């Protein structure tokens, strides 16, 4: 396994996309954090408190917007296996390291580590915005909760990108899946559920078709960093109680684990 990790270490260090993706995530985070901090500083209606950190650390993700850093860093996950197939590298890789288990899990470990570290840096950049404009610093508990949630979500998001690329063995298709499943597919499912529910005899009743909403993996995972006042807003409106940060994290974790398990099983069985 150490040999495969060495390979991944050199692979990540010697390719430009590693640098421009991490750089893009950090620069976007810095620019947007400073802009939002400036905006909050001038706001007469914003209440401050822990919410300041929530918003800046996630660049608005805590209010229900997509977590930008996850979408950027997620591409690292796609590229970790996508490049192997797009550029015909997989056979060279497996002649250097014939143990497919080591190759696969070294990619999982490296992707999780790089995406988590990048997400943590993004969170810290959010703090920079707070300090730069003299806004309210978060409480220790809130800092840990949001940081852990953001880092975990980003790492799981990137790992789902890795799994998509390993499953379809097509980088372009994997990028499309990573971008569209959380933002479009889950939105379409939510819309269908809303239509069904609002036209039912009991639009606000719990259970039934609304249960599906609790298991939309990326939406469930977002509860790890979304403010509790917004958390599960759509679900509550339809009478479904969301799982919350821990439960939502478990739903997303299980989804990513299933994706990775399927990708690993196929990677062992398929021709290189």
């Amino acid at each position: 396994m150490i040999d495969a990790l060495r390979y991944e270490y050199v692979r990540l260090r010697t390719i430009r996309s590693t640098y421009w993706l991490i750089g893009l995530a950090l620069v976007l985070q810095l620019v947007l954090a400073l802009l939002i901090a400036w905006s909050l500083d001038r706001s007469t209606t914003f209440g401050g408190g822990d919410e300041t950190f929530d918003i800046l650390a996630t660049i608005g993700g805590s209010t229900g917007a997509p977590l930008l850093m996850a979408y950027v860093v997620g591409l690292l996950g796609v590229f970790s296996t996508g490049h192997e197939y797009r550029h015909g590298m997989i056979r060279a890789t497996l002649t250097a390291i014939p143990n497919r288990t080591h190759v696969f899990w070294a990619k999982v470990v490296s992707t999780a580590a790089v995406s988590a570290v990048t997400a943590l840096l993004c969170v810290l950049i959010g703090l920079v915005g707070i300090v730069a404009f003299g806004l309210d610093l978060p409480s220790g508990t809130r800092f840990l909760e949001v940081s852990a949630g953001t880092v975990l979500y980003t790492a799981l998001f990137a790992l789902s990108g890795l799994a998509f690329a390993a499953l379809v063995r097509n980088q372009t298709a994997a990028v499309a899946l990573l971008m569209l499943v959380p933002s479009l597919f889950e939105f379409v499912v939510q819309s269908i559920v809303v239509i069904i529910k609002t036209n039912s005899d009991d639009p606000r009743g719990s259970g039934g078709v609304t249960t599906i909403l609790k298991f939309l993996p990326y939406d469930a995972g977002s509860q790890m960093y979304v403010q509790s006042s917004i958390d599960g807003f759509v679900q509550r409106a339809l009478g479904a109680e969301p799982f919350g940060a821990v439960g939502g994290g478990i739903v997303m974790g299980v989804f990513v684990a299933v994706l990775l398990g399927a990708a690993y099983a196929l990677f062992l069985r398929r021709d290189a």
Partner: protein
Amino acid sequence: MALIEARSLGKSFGTQRAVDDLSFTVRPGSVTGFLGPNGSGKSTTMRLMLGLDRGQGVTTFDGLTFAELDHPVRHVGALLEAKPFHPTRTARNHLRMLAAPNGITDRRVDEVIEMVGLAGVRGGRPGKFSLGMGQRLGIAAALLGDPHTLILDEPSNGLDPQGITWLRNLLKFLAAQGRSVFVSSHLLQEMGVLADELVVIGRGRMLANGPVRDFVSHSGLGSVTVLTPDAATLGPALQALGATVTPDGDALVVRGATAEQIGDAAHAAGVRLHQLATRQATLEEAFLEATGLSEEFRGTQSGGAA
């Protein structure tokens, strides 16, 4: 130095049998050429040997499968694809990446870059390399671990004549050091010069396996040209031996009999011989004869639409 033993290799794609019960041995100290028409299963066989494709059979390198080798690049060097690298990772970094898990130093990376003639572009992006430069980088990757065995799929693709000569000399040199070299190529003339042994397949099945000279000499396309003033007597005598005799001006072209047999027959018939010239079939002729019915893809002479 490793003995490669491939046993009962097999692979199907859907209902099509790409490789069928293929067994052969590649001995140390020799270059073994791997020949077959397009689509005959050469590349699939090589991938099966390295465990890259899932199929039947087993290939061992001194008794161990590729997956069982510790730091495999140090034992078996392989070139399987044209341009198997990321277009923006430099040539040197590409090799460093393959070297890292096998405990190979940067110094060795620089050595192989020099060896294949890419020192001037070691920092260049392979995406801008020509096919020949890409092949040289692939050969460098195969040589990285100073392996005792080389498995090369069409390594001369894209190389210029100087490059082909360089590759031929390199492979012969490596084989002379006692290494096992297994190489496929479509350049039959080149293979005739390079290879000591041949494995010839068609439609995934073994057609011939053995020394190049045996493969060529067993071809029915070899002939003996006979000049004699008594052709009318000698012709029927040779036909009685089972040979095919074709008049060619003043000469007779005889197939199916050796020069010695023809000489003995002439002596027995009291026929004078003025010339007895043996012409062996070329490797290309022998190959085309052996694989004539095994072509997967066959073109036609006519090119125009009706």
